[in-house]
């Protein structure tokens, strides 16, 4: 892709004989240990201080939206996992909800509860990976291994539930594919009970460590106005102080029956909306997930988990816009149906796509080490950006 389109300004030698300097153009290229996937940033730097970091995306573009038009309504479900493979359950849910809304299908109660349980476990998985790799990017290698150790247990639980550890393909149009296995509820409850105090232990280890907070406080402050203007969603938006969560404000599924808080960044270590706020919102959200999981696992109603939907599924013509709260924020699914067995258009608007567009703005006059902190705190994942 080269540097076409990234014209960089080179400072000319000064006429009065002063020291002339040239800005260095670095390519934090597609292969890099900490760009959370194949992302590329063209960094114009004056030594360690960046003038600008321009994102260059498209390395993981797999034309998932066009594939939807080819494989049909049911067949697209495994592809939705790959839209964001770190938090795949909400993607499944978004697609299923879009199809159900177009065809006015109602999902049975137990199916909805299974969906929420799976999604909240997936949210914990995704946040563990996010905070763990953020700590690793800042230089602390131990919290990453601890976070992944906990994530392994959830992987095992989800594997027992749906057979896969990363790309689940668990939900179907009309419900979920498989019911909860026997004795799984007890194991899940036992795990939630074990996990909740470990969040405090994680905080003791890294979250309030002086070196860590000094790295993150007051770095890349995003005001609430900017966050809304750039359409930041999820923990990024909540870190800037906007108390908005699709699960509570545009409720879907069984979330209206559940009781949980929305953690918001309060500017504890620096200004509201800095990297630390976005990080600590994710930590607190994991605690809220535990709350939700306990309620769901205890209230799980009996009944079927899926409504029978025709194999040759043909929703009536029309369009819909479904929003689900993924781990990375509000994920918008704009789906157009023309009455055939193949979707006419599926557009997925993801949280990371907007988040990466704000990197260029907040990276002015940061240091290169801070760019890493910014990327990690915005929780960018390449598959969501490029689809």
């Amino acid at each position: 892709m080269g540097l076409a389109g990234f014209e960089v300004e080179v400072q000319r030698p000064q006429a009065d004989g002063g020291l002339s300097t040239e800005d260095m153009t670095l390519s934090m290229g597609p292969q890099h240990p900490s760009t959370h996937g194949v992302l590329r940033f063209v960094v114009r730097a004056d030594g360690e201080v960046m003038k600008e970091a321009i994102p260059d995306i498209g390395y993981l573009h797999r034309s998932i939206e066009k594939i939807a038009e080819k494989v049909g309504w049911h067949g697209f479900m495994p592809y939705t996992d790959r839209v964001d493979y770190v938090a795949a359950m909400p993607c499944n849910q978004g697609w299923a909800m879009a199809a159900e809304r177009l065809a006015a299908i109602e999902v049975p109660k137990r199916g909805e509860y299974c969906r929420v349980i799976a999604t909240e476990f997936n949210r914990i998985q995704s946040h563990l990976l996010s905070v763990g790799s953020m700590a690793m990017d800042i230089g602390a290698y131990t919290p990453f291994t601890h976070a992944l150790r906990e994530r392994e247990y959830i992987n095992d639980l989800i594997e027992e539930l749906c057979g896969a550890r990363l790309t689940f393909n668990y939900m179907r149009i009309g419900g979920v594919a498989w019911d909860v296995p026997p004795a799984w509820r007890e194991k899940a409850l036992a795990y939630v009970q074990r996990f909740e105090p470990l969040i405090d232990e994680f905080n003791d280890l890294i979250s309030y460590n002086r070196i860590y907070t000094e790295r993150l406080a007051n770095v890349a402050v995003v005001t609430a106005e900017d966050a809304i203007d750039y359409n930041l969603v999820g923990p990024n938006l909540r870190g800037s102080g906007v108390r908005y969560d699709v699960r509570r404000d545009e409720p879907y599924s069984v979330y209206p029956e559940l009781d949980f808080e929305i953690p918001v960044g309060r500017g504890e270590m620096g200004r509201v909306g800095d990297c630390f706020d976005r990080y600590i919102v994710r930590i607190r959200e994991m605690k809220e997930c535990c709350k939700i999981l306990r309620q769901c696992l205890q209230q799980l109603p009996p009944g079927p988990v899926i409504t029978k939907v025709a194999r040759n599924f043909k929703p009536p013509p029309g369009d819909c816009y479904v929003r689900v709260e993924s781990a990375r924020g509000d994920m918008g699914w704009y789906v157009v149906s023309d009455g055939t067995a193949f979707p006419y258009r599926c557009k997925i608007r993801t949280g990371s796509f907007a988040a990466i567009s704000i990197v260029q703005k907040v990276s002015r006059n940061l240091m290169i080490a801070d760019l890493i902190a910014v990327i990690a705190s915005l929780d960018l994942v390449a598959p969501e950006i490029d689809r």
Partner: protein
Amino acid sequence: MAPLAAVDLHVRVKARFGESIGELTGTRRDNASATVAPAAIVEVCRFLKTEPGLEFDCLSNLSGVDYPKRSVIEVVYHLYSYRQRHLFTLKVDAPRDAPVVPSVASIWSHAEWQEREVFDLLGVTFERHPDLRRILMPEDWPGHPLRKDFVEPEEYHGISTSRESLLKAT
């Protein structure tokens, strides 16, 4: 916080812009939409963002849909208001052989990247866009992949885009 229903939103916009706004279509809150004439889209969006009581401060989604049968490429704007908690959809039809739509990047910063994606994948040119270039595909990729009549090129820089069938006996 006083969310307005789609009907009321449509009435207010139509009262202000008259002919440029089409009729309200759609059956539910999330697909209630009105078509807007391309020339007026920037003013309509500015009105929707700044008018007290409407305050659509967020461009939730901007997508393009190719309708070769109607010979248009439709650009769909999903607007959301965090303050008032209402949702509305605008649709702009651009002629398919020369799709040009004014850019709303000056109103919502999020539009900048979304419009680049629509330009890249569908070929819609956005007037007065600060930086209109391809975003997902390589700069020298021929064609616009998401169009219904897109034919994949045989090769790209010497790399073949098709594979031999694995079922053929060698």
